[in-house]
């Protein structure tokens, strides 16, 4: 493992995480309670408390490239039991937003693909459409056969309508998504312009 160069921590990253999450990450004293209660811990590369620590040290890349930020299911066990009243789940959510914006996660990240697929159906219909979502996700994630065994019984029981329910105001909902995407693009553009200036890395 490469040593963390402490003098080169990304303070802007810390500030951004604190601003977006409205949490003070300095309050974390590394008791590990978040890790202790985390149901998804088994799937993490860094534990929850390690992520908090890496944020404190301004290790943007390590945090945003971690598998853990994608695997958190926001059950908020950590938030509920944090002795320092830090909303850890919100901090991780914010990191996930940043990772997504930074283009991390990749096309084979199932959690990311699932979220994208889900929101696509909402964007189209105004409501989510489970069957459409499944099809979209399984296709995109290149795992068409997983969960296939569930389909017959669900379809038989009428629990997976073939056609989406579409709402009248779906163009309004689509508008929300459109404006959101535009904002994101604008932000991204601003960032890439910024990136041209020399900046401290966090190696």
């Amino acid at each position, binding site marked *: 493992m490469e040593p963390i160069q402490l003098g080169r921590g990304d303070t802007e990253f810390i500030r951004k995480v604190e601003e*977006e999450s*409205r949490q003070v990450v300095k309050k974390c004293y590394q008791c590990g309670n978040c890790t202790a209660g985390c*149901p*998804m811990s*088994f*799937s993490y590369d860094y534990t929850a408390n390690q992520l908090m620590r890496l944020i404190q040290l301004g290790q943007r890349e390590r945090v945003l490239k971690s598998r853990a930020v994608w*695997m958190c*299911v*926001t*059950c*908020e*066990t950590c*938030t*509920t039991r944090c002795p320092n009243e830090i*909303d850890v789940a919100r901090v991780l*959510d*914010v990191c*996930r*937003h940043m990772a*997504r914006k930074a283009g991390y996660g990749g096309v084979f990240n*199932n*959690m990311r*693909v*699932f*979220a994208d697929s*889900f*929101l696509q159906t*909402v964007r189209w219909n*105004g*409501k*989510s*459409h*489970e*069957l459409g*979502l*499944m099809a979209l*996700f399984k296709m995109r*994630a290149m795992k068409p056969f997983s*969960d296939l*065994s*569930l389909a017959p*019984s*669900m379809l038989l*029981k*009428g*629990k*997976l*309508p073939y056609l989406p*329910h579409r*709402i009248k*105001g*779906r163009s*309004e*909902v689509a*508008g*929300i*998504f459109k*404006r*959101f995407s535009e*904002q994101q693009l604008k932000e991204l553009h601003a960032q890439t312009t910024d990136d041209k200036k020399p900046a401290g890395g966090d190696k």
Partner: protein
Amino acid sequence: MAEKTFAYYPGCSGAGTSIEYDKSNRAVCEELGIKLVDIPDWNCCGSTPAHQVDHVLSAALGARNFAQAEQLGLDTIITPCPACLKNQHNALEHMEEPGFAERVNELTRRPLTRKHSIKSVLQVILEDITPEEVAKHVKTPLSGIKIVPYYGCLMNRPGKSMKFDDDENPMALDRLMAAIGCEVLDFPLKQDCCGGAAGVADNKVTSRLSGRHLQVANHLGADAMVVACPLCQMNMDMRQAQANAYYGTSIKLPVFYYTQLMGLAFGIDKSRLALNKLIVDPAPVLAKIGKSAEEAQA
């Protein structure tokens, strides 16, 4: 008893994977005098994916629903689904933070004009109706069946934000199920996460987590599990076979929505409770109702 009227947000799965929850919930609310007025042309709250992408986007989807509800003149929305509750509850909470509402309005272009609140149908039944009142509606007590209540993680946590029941040892389902005559077992994993929506992305995750619940419930001698969340129900019921395969077990534990059992106790027609939609066959458990342990064995 005076009727209580609320704006109602059914949630997307109510027309699909949790159709039995929506149906039974409407039937039970009618029986208890809770009038549900559907929010006109409501949209998806964005569920887990939206808040995973962006909090403002997530709040904007919720905000459109609140804007739609304003047409009804009702300020309190109730929803059966804890995921919809949590998302839209957080939307309201975040919009209290400085500058957040403005960012949401940029997306929706429909600023809210009233003060809104959202709570679960379960909270209304527990707090406004009370278990004592629920007991008065019971025609067939569900004696003879042992259930474990499973709350999931979304409804009560964190307590200082959700302000409902106890965020470490919730008792709402325990009390309501006891009120309709079930034998309620103390379920130690009543709030441990089942994996939620992660099952679609990777069903090993949900199998691993929900399998533990099923095994503990089985070990305790439960006849059935009772839930209030479509995601929990899906992971425990629809994915029960996956969990069995993951752990090499062969558990057959029916997983009811609490409204289905309440409906049964109230004597509501079974077709309105959509019991046939459950994946794990509930018939053997339903046969036990009203019988003592010895009778059931014989």
